[in-house]
């Protein structure tokens, strides 16, 4: 984990409301493992004091990039970032995804910016499997070609049917899962909105496969100090708080005690 004054080297529209920001960050870049994130201080956002967390989409020795969606004050202010601007980042944060268990069949499940969080995982995975991507419309399904180029079989699903199966990601995942002879050999890596995480977690528990869920909780510090981003993690005699930023963001489905 490092704090670094990174420099914008690329910034452009990706698709729909999504943009790609590439940062020269020689301190942070080389440390990144798949599924980690960074905390970015949005420049000129002086009346908002918190950093914004973003999954690391790509990383190498020179730096890292993120794929972000404009949803509020912070991300909207990020749109004005220009090549050459300085951006203060802290990263890489969190533990990221574990390595694929030997002999298991990797399955990626993602929604929205979750795709970005899985790209590095897809890349380093020794075995390429199937990727189920969900989104509202075709505009929300990101980087399909990139995953295909890496050798993944990508199965999109959109709420409005504008790309792939019509419906939630489960609409394409469930029929596929039903066809699997050895469901328990699946190992899922999931990143997306909470209902998607929950749906995949439920299936993992019901059908006895492993599902690594990257949890999306609002954060303040990003380093484990403030106890903002906690979720309930099961213990032998009940539950304890686990911090998504420090102890996560990735948890195995059986660890999580879902609330409400």
């Amino acid at each position, binding site marked *: 984990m490092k704090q670094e004054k990174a420099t914008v080297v690329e910034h452009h529209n990706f698709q729909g409301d999504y943009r790609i920001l590439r940062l020269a960050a020689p301190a942070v870049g080389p440390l990144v493992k798949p599924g980690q994130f960074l905390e970015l201080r949005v420049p000129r956002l002086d009346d908002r004091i918190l950093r914004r967390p973003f999954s690391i989409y790509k990383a190498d020795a020179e730096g890292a990039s993120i794929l972000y969606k404009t949803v509020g004050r912070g991300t909207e202010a990020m749109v004005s970032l220009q090549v050459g601007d300085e951006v203060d980042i802290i990263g890489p944060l969190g533990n990221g995804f574990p390595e694929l268990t030997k002999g298991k069949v990797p399955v990626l499940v993602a929604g929205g910016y979750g795709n970005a969080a899985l790209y590095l995982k897809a890349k380093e995975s020794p075995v390429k499997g199937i990727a189920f991507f969900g989104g509202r419309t075709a505009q929300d399904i990101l980087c399909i070609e990139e995953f295909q180029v890496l050798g993944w079989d990508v199965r999109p699903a959109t709420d409005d049917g504008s790309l792939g199966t019509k419906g939630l990601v489960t609409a394409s995942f469930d029929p596929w899962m039903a066809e699997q002879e050895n469901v328990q050999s699946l190992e899922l890596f999931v990143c997306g909105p909470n209902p998607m995480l929950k749906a995949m977690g439920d299936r993992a528990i019901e059908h006895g496969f492993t599902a690594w869920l990257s949890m999306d909780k609002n954060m303040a510090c990003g*380093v484990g100090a*403030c106890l903002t981003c906690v979720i309930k993690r099961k213990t032998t005699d009940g539950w304890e708080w686990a911090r998504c930023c420090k102890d996560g963001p990735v948890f195995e489905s059986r660890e999580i005690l879902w609330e409400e």
Partner: protein
Amino acid sequence: MSVALEIKIGSMEMKNPVTVASGTFGYGPEYADLVDLNRLGAITVKGIGPEEHVGNATPRTFETRGGMLNAIGLPGPGAKGFIEKYVPFLAPYDVPVIVNIWGKGMEDYGKVVEMLDAEDTVSAYEINLSCPNVKEGGSAFGTDTDSFSRVIELVRGKTQKPIIPKLAPNVSDIGAFAKAAEDGGADAISIMNSYPAMAINIETLEPELANRTGGLSGPAIKPIAIKLVWDVAKATKLPIIGMGGIYEPEDAIEFMVAGASAVAVGTANFTDPSTAIRVIDGIESYLVEKGHSSVANIVGTVKA
């Protein structure tokens, strides 16, 4: 020219007047990759009660204009857990550790001190009498001088180490509490905790925090904190640890000029973990520039 940055809070020696605010810096390890802990004047850890405590449901924080709300609710490992999990980490560092303590009832304050007092790593106690986010205790003691005094006296009876009551800001006459702290044998006063506040989501009609209300911290409250420090400085000779919205060295200096002998960097750690170090360096530069030989020279120098 070299300037003396050292200060003392009771028997606790700090190499500079800058600590971190309880609850914004974890227990030490969390920021150790980013901040050279040995450079801090002291580390103040998250509130510790006698027992393990789960704290509040989420959401626990919410960002506001120029500040944030928190209602963490004092989750933590309790005194025993703290000793097991964090003292071994903290012990090797060359920096005093201030343990922020709290309790649901009055006796809890005594208990937690009894449990911690044998630890050499624990240098001082900051007594949280002002947590806006727990129903049971904290702020009830901080807004009534009688029970306030009794907590101070109770803790004073249990330890020789410096005790530093942390006052509640939401009172009309903060001086009365400062005086009560002094009379009760406190070694210093810490001011301010986050201010009771609230935000509501107008789409869901629900409060933005699970606890409904929380405490406001950050730059927004700095002018309130400066006034309270100034008020406390007029009411007591005890050293003051000032905090509330410190983001820049100039903010810290403003607190000291108002009457604080030391300062704590809180919410700013989230924005920029290098703040405390920048503040230490900035105070030193200011002293050099103004020709002061010691940081004590600027404490309470406001012309007011």
